[in-house]
């Protein structure tokens, strides 16, 4: 069964292993952007222009897309390895982050924090960046433009196919817990 999800408030009801079609806004952020998010949120600074990015309402997508070819919304935009963001994630969860999309396993600390703060971690089609681009309906830069492909973009996606990897009860499909 595939569950349609349009609101992050329903994230906490998802169970590990479930297939999801997600529609809504997601924010790209990978290594260097995470370093800055932790720094800026820690200092109470607004993120990006007009403090557009609110961690409590954001879903983070671990992704650095290729450039959009002429006439396209975005280039290839599959997920990157999530575990590289593990050291920054518990802090962001504490600050209100409710959803993350990426590929691969997470650390014990991240799983614990996902459970504690009732968040969710989902998998996107790994290594399928051209396919994922088809689900992106809008893309706009939000913060850290100097990071180039690692800047934060706001993406609007429609029916993006995802799999729940770690649910709000801390259940992990990779069976580490």
């Amino acid at each position, binding site marked *: 069964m595939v569950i349609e999800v349009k609101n992050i408030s329903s994230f906490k009801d998802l169970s590990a292993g479930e297939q999801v079609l997600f529609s809504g806004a997601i924010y790209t952020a990978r290594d260097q952007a995470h370093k800055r998010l932790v720094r800026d949120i820690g200092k109470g600074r607004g993120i990006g222009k007009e403090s557009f990015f609110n961690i409590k309402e954001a879903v983070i997508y671990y992704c650095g897309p290729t450039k959009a070819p002429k006439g396209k919304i975005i*280039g*290839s935009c599959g997920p990157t390895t999530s575990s590289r963001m593990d050291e920054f994630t518990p802090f962001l969860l504490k600050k209100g982050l409710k959803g993350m999309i990426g590929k691969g396993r997470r650390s014990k600390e991240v799983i614990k924090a996902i459970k504690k703060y009732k968040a969710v971690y989902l*998998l996107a089609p790994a290594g399928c960046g*051209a396919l994922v681009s088809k689900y992106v309906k809008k893309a706009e830069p939000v913060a850290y433009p100097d990071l180039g492909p690692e800047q934060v973009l706001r993406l609007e996606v429609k029916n993006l196919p995802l799999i729940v990897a770690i649910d709000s009860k801390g259940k992990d499909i990779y069976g580490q817990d």
Partner: protein
Amino acid sequence: MRVIDAKKITETVADLCLKANCSLRSDVLAKIKSAYRKEPDGKAREALAEIINNAKIAQRERLAICQDTGMPIVFIDIGQNVRIKGGLRAAVERGIAKGYKKGCFRESIVCDPLKRGKPSYRGAVIHTEITRGSRLKLTVMPKGFGCENKSVLRMFLPTVSIEEIKDFVVETVESAGPDACPPYVVGVGIGGGADYASLLAKKALLGKLTNDQRPTTNDQILSRDLLKRINKLKIGPMGLGGKATCLAVNIEEYPTHIAGLPVAVNISCHALRSATAVL
């Protein structure tokens, strides 16, 4: 002496960057399709269908197969009777910049590995080899770093058993787990020194992914045994379990010193990309 203009090299490298990044190698695609046919499990099968569909979209729309358009690794075999008119390295770098720009590929290279900074296209890894004859062979391999990060080199004792080497290769894949976009292709380099074993492991990924039903050479037997053992790990496509954890194991060997036995493992994600041209 045959003279090859550096401009010709630039054009060829640019074309190879586009081809490698947008058209999945036919031998890789054939392996994925065969894995799809054999996969009974629902989610793993769906993941393989997505990979096949992704390759189709990339090819049709000239989109990068993967957003990680990699660190470009360039292998150049230069015939000893060839003289290059112009600078070789500059010609290759210009070709990469041209191809990557045209394809709208990602700027994934930081020029200072410690300070990092804004990424660009500059900084390909170039391996040259002098060969006989008057041809110049160029191969571009865009290597993604999700899987490159899982590479391991181990310096074994010369008295090690083959079983210990097999264990090492299997454990390396097991430790990569679901993180680096399985099903994988595993390159193994055995022999040489530390540097050369690592190079061999990567070069092994360039070899055609064949299906040795009846292996005859020691290499073929070893690669078949490793493939069987790795697929028993049941990591599966996207780490969702299932049969296809590894599409192929390719092995390259070279003489080594009496005091040692270097073994390197270089893992590729399912999007194993490379393209070759001969001038």
